[in-house]
């Protein structure tokens, strides 16, 4: 049973400036990750990369509806959320290269991106682990009397971990200012949802905790943005605590690494086709004039090549860095 989001929210409109900004963000993430995939076989990036190519709309739709002082909690598949929230592309690229100028100075790699200056909490390679951490951050924001909100990203697989259920209950109980964003791409590594869930009624499961839940089944970036904006407004007003979004989406590349893997046989290329047809990058791009789109595309390419050049030119950390940051002092 598919539970569609209420039409009133879906009808929310985006201005020309919104479209331009959202397109730029989508395009930047798509192209940056394609560039990562291109560089990867050179072994310059020695950090396992989990690309979000095809899934950008979720991060962009959600982050565009947040204020800069709101917070996101990304996952190891986190390049999109990191960039959509304003994380520095240069520092991300340098991190992938293992350079001292990276977001963690080369210590964390692709799976542990962070940018506290843009309110991007760190990510974890251990699935589900950051959900309660995001909760704790939200608890603190509420306690401090702010109206800031946390958006916590996780995959469909993460909902199977015990900590997910424990977190939902606590968030509802304490009416925490948190938006749960499940990026449901139907797979955990190579295992489809049908082998992991007895039913797909995720939103219903979540609702029994007393948390309103919406399913967005088509990956439409403007719909995701509108529903997020509406949800965030409610959360900010302190009306009813957490809200849950299940955003259905599709991973175009392999689970980890730069390639496609449809030849592995665990999923069919025909499953990909409708998502490519409905590609949000192209769709938003088509709403812009050719000249404006070309201008944005050119600036995106410049930003990416600057970031790659920055990463290439940066130094590796010196051996002394190995033992710094073990303890705060």
């Amino acid at each position, binding site marked *: 049973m598919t539970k569609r989001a209420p039409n009133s929210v879906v009808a929310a409109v985006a201005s020309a400036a919104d479209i331009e900004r959202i397109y730029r963000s989508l395009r930047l993430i798509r192209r940056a990750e394609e560039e990562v995939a291109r560089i990867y076989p050179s*072994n310059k990036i*020695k*950090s*396992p*990369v989990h690309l979000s190519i095809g899934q950008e709309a979720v991060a962009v739709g959600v982050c565009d509806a947040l204020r800069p002082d709101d917070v996101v909690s990304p996952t190891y598949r986190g390049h999109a959320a990191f960039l959509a929230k304003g994380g520095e592309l240069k520092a991300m690229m340098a991190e992938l290269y*293992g*350079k001292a100028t*990276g977001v963690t100075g*080369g*210590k*964390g*790699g*692709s*799976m*542990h991106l962070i940018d506290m200056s843009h309110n991007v909490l760190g990510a*974890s*390679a*251990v*699935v*589900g682990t950051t959900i309660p951490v995001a909760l704790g951050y939200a608890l603190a924001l509420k306690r401090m009397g702010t109206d800031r909100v946390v958006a916590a990203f996780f995959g469909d*697989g*993460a909902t*199977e*971990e*015990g900590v997910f259920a424990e977190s939902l209950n606590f968030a509802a109980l304490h009416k925490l200012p948190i938006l749960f964003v499940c990026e449901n791409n139907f797979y*955990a*590594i*190579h*295992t489809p949802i049908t*082998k*992991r*869930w007895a039913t797909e009624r995720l939103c219903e499961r979540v609702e029994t905790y007393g948390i309103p839940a919406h399913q967005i089944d088509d990956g439409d970036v403007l719909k995701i943005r509108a529903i997020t904006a509406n949800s965030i407004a409610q959360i900010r007003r302190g009306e009813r605590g957490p809200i849950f979004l299940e955003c259905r989406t599709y991973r175009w590349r392999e689970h*980890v*690494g730069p390639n496609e893997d449809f030849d*592995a*046989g*665990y999923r069919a290329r025909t499953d990909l086709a409708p998502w490519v047809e409905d590609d949000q990058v192209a769709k938003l791009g088509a709403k812009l004039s050719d000249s404006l789109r070309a201008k944005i595309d050119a600036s995106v390419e410049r930003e990416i090549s600057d970031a790659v050049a920055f990463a290439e030119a940066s130094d*590796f*950390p*010196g*051996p002394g*860095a*190995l*033992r710094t940051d*073990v303890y705060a002092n």
Partner: protein
Amino acid sequence: MSMQTNSPSPSANTRLLTYVDALREGVAQEMRRDPRVFVFGLDVDDHKAIQGSTFGLVEEFGPERVFGTPLSEDAMTGVAIGAAMAGMRPVHVHIRMDFLMLAMNQLVNIAAKSHYMYGGQVRVPLVVRSMIGKSWGQGAQHSQGLHAMFMHVPGLKVIAPSNAYDAKECLIAAIRDDNPVIFVEHRLLYFTDAFVPEETYEVPFGKARVCTAGGDITIVGISNMLVECMRAHELLAEEGIEAEVIDPISLLPLDVETILSSVRKTGRLLVVDNAWTGTGASAEIVAAVAERLGNGQRFEAVRMGYAPTTCPTTPALESEFYPDPAKIARAAYAMVRPGQPAWSPDPERAKLAYQVKFRGPF
């Protein structure tokens, strides 16, 4: 690399087998022998089949005996324990050792304790396979050797085979054991090979192997560090130093006697672990030897392992984090020839022990 093991009963039917194939063969043979054995865990039945170690099992034994799970390590461990109590012999597979942390409560508070706290009324014949990762910037949460955490807990058994021969025998012994066994594998060992008998064979836990005989220094290498110690042994031999390299194989129970009698002979003990040294396996080994040495005999001990920090992803720091053959040989040399100027093997030669077959990114 192929490894000369002084295997207990060299069989006519041996052939070179990789570690990963030895694991697969061992579990398949046990599943044929004993219908109570089943294999489950995230990804055991996908096309990558845990680096190939569970490959073909679902085809041969069917999805009731070989199945993937939701991402629910904590609950799945409890399920394995319950099934074991009911008389089954589950093999629960984790593609990373780090994920065992989610199952810690079940492993420490239920699996390890049940036989004792229920007065012997239940047994937990459970095998937990887990892999230590390394390299390609997998970093902090995908490269930890956490065996010492389990060595702390009576009721568990902990084994860390370093070669294909032991991998097969240990897996079979673990399946046949009536206790929970934490089976520690290392990603870099998967494509190393050794001579492995075709038939099933089993040795009791708690027996270390003396890999090379030598009178100058005792070197104990844990898990994949045994491979690096063997290389260090070669480098040292060229300098005229004879190292006795010991593979403990079984960490709990630990064969202290074998290590002790070697140290009695050499008076020097270097323990190299693929883990941190603090309160770790190396600390335990040194302490166990020190306690038992007796007769006022003195010995010199050095521990090597991860740098006391979190594993970084950048290759610039990763090499500083891990022990390697050059570091091991250098430390051993300094122990054996304390008065002499420091010595370092040719870096090019020392490099050779690295597992060249390993490729990222997984």
